[in-house]
């Protein structure tokens, strides 16, 4: 592989992984198709998380609030206004009357996620380390609390179903766009400066890098991609509830990122797809699966196995499955 092609290959790996997931899903049963589609959504969300967490080294527990805002907006404005005035009478007028297609709604979701992240990031990006993690978590707590009780911005505690669903190719395409954005960012001036602050904050500062500004840029981009991911999630499931964007999703996506390898885009995609695959396989195995022999696992083993596998991967390979490297066709020495 010639050197000039290396970046293209690095981006091609994650994108092809998404395309392959979508392609394989075509020949499967409906349930399995849903699981594969879910894997694509997870990949998009984890890539969004990677843009900030991976490049800056600062953990954010708050990204699912950007996904939630994107998901709610994108879901609500694709619904028929008459249905909305019937099921959610208290909705803000612009949410109630708007009715646009899924694809433009996803663009709006990304915009909303980005704006929200920017507003949140302006004060919070001054923090680093654990205080940053807890402050972003507080943002998630507020978002969840408000979405759960405030009838003007959504269905509240109820589940809103009948959101228009999108096919696996739309999901894969949007995921590929997220990958391309993340890749372009990490190779840009901004991305490289932020990665420098991750490696050594003091040296980066001494070289004239504005840590606050670089983190804010990444946080905003990351929030926009998370908004997009949230929109995809809502349109993949076809429903909205506040719980789908809370603790479980936060921990699962963070775990996927770290298990895959937080240092690279390839790691984010590998982590999301491999944990989704494991989850899906074990879910099937609880209802008997054929792997040369009939395998039936007792109910509940799925969660136990996933927890154990995640812990094991982290213990054996603390830098993640990809060791934080980008996709490459060349064999490198470990």
């Amino acid at each position: 592989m010639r050197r000039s092609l290396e970046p293209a290959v690095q981006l091609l790996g994650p994108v092809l992984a998404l395309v392959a997931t979508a392609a394989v899903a075509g020949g499967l049963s409906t349930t399995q198709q849903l699981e594969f589609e879910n894997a694509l959504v997870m990949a998009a969300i984890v890539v969004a998380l990677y843009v900030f967490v991976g490049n800056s080294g600062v953990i954010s527990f708050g990204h699912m609030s950007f996904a939630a805002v994107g998901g709610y907006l994108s879901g609500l404005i694709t619904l028929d206004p008459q249905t909305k005035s019937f099921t959610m009478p208290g909705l803000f007028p612009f949410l109630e009357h708007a009715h646009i297609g899924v694809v433009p709604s996803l663009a709006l979701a990304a915009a909303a996620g980005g704006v929200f992240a920017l507003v949140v990031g302006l004060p919070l990006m001054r923090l680093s380390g654990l205080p940053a993690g807890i402050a972003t978590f507080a943002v998630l707590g507020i978002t969840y609390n408000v979405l759960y009780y405030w009838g003007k911005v959504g269905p509240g505690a109820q589940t809103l179903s009948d959101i228009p669903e999108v096919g696996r190719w739309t999901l894969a395409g949007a995921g590929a766009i997220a990958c391309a954005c993340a890749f372009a960012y990490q190779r840009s001036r901004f991305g490289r400066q932020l990665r420098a602050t991750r490696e050594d904050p003091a040296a980066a500062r001494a070289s004239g890098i504005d840590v606050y500004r670089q983190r804010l840029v990444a946080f905003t981009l990351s929030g926009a991609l998370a908004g997009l991911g949230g929109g995809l999630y809502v349109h993949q499931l076809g429903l909205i509830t506040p719980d789908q964007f809370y603790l479980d999703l936060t921990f699962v996506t963070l775990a996927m990122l770290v298990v895959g390898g937080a240092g690279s885009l390839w790691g984010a995609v590998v982590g999301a797809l491999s944990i989704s695959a494991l989850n899906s396989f074990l879910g099937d195995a609880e209802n008997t699966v054929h792997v040369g022999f009939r395998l039936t696992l007792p109910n509940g083993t799925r969660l136990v196995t996933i927890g154990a596998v995640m812990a094991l991967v982290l213990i054996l390979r603390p830098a993640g499955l990809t060791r934080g490297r980008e996709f490459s066709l060349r064999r490198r020495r470990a």
Partner: protein
Amino acid sequence: MNWGQAIADAVALGSLYGLVAVGIGLVFGVMRLINFAYGELITAGGYVLAYTGGWPPALAIAACVAAVIALALLQERVAFRALRRMGASPATMLVATFAVSFLLQAIYLIAFGSRGQIVGTLGSLNTAFTIHGVDIRWIVVATVVTGAFLLGATAALLNRTNIGLHIRAAATDFRTARILGVRANRVIGFSFVVAGFLAAAVSVLYTVSNPLVQPQMGVPITIFALVGVVVGGLDRLWSAALGAFAVGFVYGMCGDLLSSQSSVYLPSVVYGLVIVVLVLRPAGLFAPLRARMVERV
């Protein structure tokens, strides 16, 4: 509106979070590890109490303490020691504790079911006595007294004993402490034992007011205590405990003060205050004025 009542309830909640904070802060001090699976220790204690309901209370509590300490040591031995040896990054360590937390919850779900188990031990502490029109349940008194006692005991252990000195040395500079002859595994193991003991105490106190033990019982307790720890200041045990107490106290007070209609937004109010405090004082509310920010995790 009864101020006395509100304060009594808030103090009890604060003391409980304070205890959790000491357990989390102790391990953080030595290992620089936020153990997210700490709440699962509390849950484990709750299950032991639920299944020893017929035993004499002292015996049931002893069983609870023994089981929780054993589980704490198991966590350290199986998961965290290996990670420490591999030199894993703080982010990896943190996510590993999520994984352990997730794993334990899944095990509880299989072993004990999702419906929950009822704890009856010390249920009589739920009765109240009245002072000046304020109903104070005995458990509130018990929580405050136990909390203050255990906090004092932990402080004495750290400041007056040999192993306490080792723990403090390890917390200040782990590598140098090892070079000077502090036995790393023993110190870390011991801090997990103390943390486990504190978790068991929390199980006993918490289940009196909230007798239903479910697989996810520990999660919100850990989260709130952790928020409190960071708000108070991670670097020292007492500031961490005070921070968690403050969060519990504010939560309890606001819960009583807000009208029932706006009380659904109570978490938002508390989290909003948390953000304000962290932005103004990133090193923690009770940290020294010119303290450096903790640049970890």
